[in-house]
């Protein structure tokens, strides 16, 4: 089922972008090497996010809200609380996706988490700030009021699915501001982060209890 694989690639891009871009970047970060140094001390990240989906068919963006938790090296929880509750959890090498049904969280069996496992294999690299060394993306960094990193897919695996990803890091707050995943001229997804907390303790149950 190609849709499954594509969904996983999409999730991969989403999670990796967010992990990458949720890294606090020092105000003086002006190179990938500096980003790598800045990311070396990241042990945990947690944040809230608002996702806005823009499409030509929509008269106004579809807004989703949720939260994100990460504990190095490979545990994360990416959760939407509305409008459609769903959770992707990775813990000790096991990745699962859950959806709400009849008021209960049930495992989404259609997904098959193969690609998410690939994600985890990549996460270490992302978290080490090695985002310019991933052969799937060409990365550029631009300094301005904010630091902007642009990832452009290389090869055919993302072709027709994602045109590019733009990550904006606030120099002032030294934290990620937003991720923009551009699918094509008519559709993109904007994720804005708030309450980003770095290296604050996260209870392990966050990755085990999906309710």
């Amino acid at each position: 089922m190609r849709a499954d694989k594509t969904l996983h690639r999409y999730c991969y891009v989403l999670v990796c972008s967010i992990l990458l871009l949720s890294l606090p970047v020092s105000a003086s970060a002006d190179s990938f090497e500096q980003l790598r140094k800045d990311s070396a001390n990241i042990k945990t990240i947690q944040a809230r996010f608002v996702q806005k989906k823009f499409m030509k068919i929509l008269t106004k963006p579809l807004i989703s809200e949720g939260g994100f938790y990460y504990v190095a090296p490979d545990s994360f929880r990416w959760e939407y609380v509305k409008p459609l509750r769903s959770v992707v959890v990775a813990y000790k090498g096991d990745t699962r996706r859950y959806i709400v049904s009849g008021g209960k969280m049930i495992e989404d069996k259609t997904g098959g988490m193969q690609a998410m496992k690939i994600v985890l294999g990549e996460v270490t690299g992302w978290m080490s700030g090695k985002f310019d060394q991933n052969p799937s993306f060409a990365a550029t960094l631009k300094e301005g009021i904010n630091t902007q990193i642009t990832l452009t897919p290389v090869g055919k695996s993302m072709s027709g699915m994602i045109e590019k990803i733009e990550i904006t890091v606030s120099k002032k707050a030294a934290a990620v501001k937003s991720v923009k995943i551009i699918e094509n001229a008519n559709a993109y997804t904007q994720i804005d982060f708030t309450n980003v907390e770095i290296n604050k303790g996260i209870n392990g149950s966050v990755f085990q209890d999906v309710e």
Partner: protein
Amino acid sequence: MKCIHLFIVIVTVLLASCQTLPVINSPMISADQRNLACPSPFLKEKYQLIHAIEITTAGNVQGAIIGITVADPSTRFVSSAIMTAEGMVLLEAQSGGEKLNILRALPPFDSGDFVINMIDDIKLIFFPPQGLLQQKGNLPDGSTACRWQAQNGDVIDVIASKPEITEIKKYSACGRLKRHIKLTQTAGNAYQSIELQGSGIVNYTLLMTLIEAQPAECELPGKEKLKVKNSEKSRRR
């Protein structure tokens, strides 16, 4: 000779597999029949609706997606997209008149039949039936029902089974139930909760819960006034 026997067997099997449609009893007095209003939960103007959709096959919940529909009853134009909670668009298509335009479709949603069936289901839910109004009256349980016959022979019943529930049933020409839709109006909107049961090679159920509904108009100045007006319209529907 063998061919004739085979033909007779096939025709017999086909005839035997046909089923009888539920009986609609027309009112005895013709004036009553004229005055009987058919249930009409259908859109009156161009609307945009967003639903959370839970997909069930063989009794097991398979997954959940978000469905976006823009439907215009005056032209029977439909634009629809389905996407994951993460925002990935799996399918986007438009249908107006006889034309179907698939803007994006990821396998297995790229099958033409799948998209055609999806658009047909959307039209069945949101637009009044096309074809000849054959009968109106009451089912044996007292529900008001109207029956249309489409050009392709399909039969569509629209039934007001309870004050807050309207059902739409589509039968094949020989009476096989192909779609059973139940619209439950729980918060002032006929499309608050939609249950669609599809029967065919694969039986499936879609449980659709309304996230958002609004007239599909461009953003105009005086947006706040428009919003109030829209919410009033939603309540009326």
